[in-house]
């Protein structure tokens, strides 16, 4: 058998080499962006805006019963694509994959319930907020937890890759954090008493509290939770275009309408708008 394979060896090596050479053809052209060229031009030229969005985060971005993308951020991404006069393509991202996908060039921007942090700023760039959520706590009724200060030494559930863990620790360094893959798992753990509280944006928590009488949202949010668009470093033209589009969406009432449609009720805060800045 040995001499048999010895002679076959060169053919084997050739076959392996051929397949290895064929693999790179599976790549995409999404990152075909020359140095110094703005994503703004790339998007207009392509005729499609590729946005990294959440498909698992109601009411910001999720999939409805017909399998369609819906949500506050999905409609806002459509608004941005309309302003550009291009089609919208949505790529699903998670807390962990959104930044690598932007940096690698899989997407033109991140619109995925993302907060700006110094840490993330080292890798990507942000616009100003298009929305302000607030980080809050969800607890069982009668838990004795009435503010973020009360979770010292208590178990608080958050989701991996999100910024919520740091938010909790900034206000209560003694909290014991427990990480989950998804919010429903944290919710289940809370209801089973395996954690004492869970923490994320108040929109998500309010929905959980509305659906279950034994759960209650603790007070007003302890930390503002600005939602920003993510763009690649050194692309001011694209970032400022998005910035202006955010202001347009505030001044023409789009954000207010989308809030009423997806979150329900009237928005209770304002984001300052100074469109003149961009027209000068």
């Amino acid at each position: 058998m040995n001499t048999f394979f010895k002679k076959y060896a060169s053919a084997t090596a050739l076959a392996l080499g051929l397949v290895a050479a064929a693999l790179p053809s599976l790549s995409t052209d999404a990152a075909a962006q020359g140095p110094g060229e703005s994503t703004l031009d790339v998007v207009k030229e392509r005729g499609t805006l590729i946005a990294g969005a959440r498909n698992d985060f109601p009411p910001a971005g999720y999939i409805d019963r017909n399998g369609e993308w819906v949500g506050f951020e999905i409609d806002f991404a459509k608004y941005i694509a309309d302003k550009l006069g291009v089609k919208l393509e949505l790529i699903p991202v998670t807390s962990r994959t959104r930044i690598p996908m932007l940096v690698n060039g899989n997407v033109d921007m991140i619109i995925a319930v993302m907060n700006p942090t110094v840490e993330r700023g080292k890798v990507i760039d942000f616009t100003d907020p298009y929305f302000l959520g607030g980080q809050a706590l969800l607890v069982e009724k009668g838990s004795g937890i009435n503010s973020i200060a009360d979770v010292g030494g208590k178990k608080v559930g958050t989701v991996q890759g999100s910024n919520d863990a740091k938010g909790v620790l900034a206000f209560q360094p003694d909290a014991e954090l427990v990480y989950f893959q998804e919010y429903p798992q944290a919710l289940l753990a809370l209801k089973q008493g395996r954690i004492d509280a869970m923490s994320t944006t108040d929109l998500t928590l309010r929905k959980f509290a509305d659906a279950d009488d034994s759960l209650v949202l603790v007070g007003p949010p302890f930390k503002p939770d600005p939602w920003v668009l993510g763009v690649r470093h050194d692309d001011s033209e694209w970032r400022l275009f998005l910035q202006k589009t955010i202001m347009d969406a505030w001044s023409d009432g789009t954000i207010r309408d989308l809030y009423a449609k997806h979150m329900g009720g009237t928005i209770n805060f304002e984001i300052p708008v100074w469109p003149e800045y961009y027209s000068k």
Partner: protein
Amino acid sequence: MNFSVITDNLYFLSTGLWTTVHLTVFTLIGGLLLGTPLALARASGHRVLRLPALLLIETIRGIPVLMLIFWIYFLLPHLVGAVPAYTAGLVALIVFNTAYSAEIVRAGINSIDHGNVEAGRATGLNLVQILRHIVLPQAFANMTPALMSQAVMVYKTTSVVFVIGIVDLFRAATIVNNREFKPIEIFAFVALVYFIPCTIVSRYTRRIEIKRMIRHGTFQKA
């Protein structure tokens, strides 16, 4: 318990299942196409071929598939530029399956008596002809049960691609659960969808094995 959540979201769940199915099929085909030459290299008398093949197979078999997916997901863009998550996931699954398929193919080739090769040479066939007409057909027949168990394993393993955001059956179910909060109903359904084809294939594999044992006269009723 209210299973209407399944029918309400059947369309989206079925798109997830479709992704799982073609991921499985491509992974099996890719693993076999790459695994066969790798097995030949692994069984080769040449140290230059055998040792790298051995190292590759043992390394891949020795690391968790979850880690492999993450690693390839971050590695590929450095080699070939931006790739969709699907491509990264598929490449990782094929790499994973190649190592396992290579061991199955090697065992299959080893199961063929060396006399076959000698007989082939005696009739004047060259080595490629011997491989194509004598060794591999018999080897693949012997490998069928092992390859089918591997297919079952790959079908279940594809569920780990959720970590890089590919919407397979498991991820689709997670997304639906994030909106509907019916984990018991949704994941019971998903478990069933994984369980049924796996069981059918396993039973069928067992039947093939028994038939072969009867043919070879080695079957003993348990």
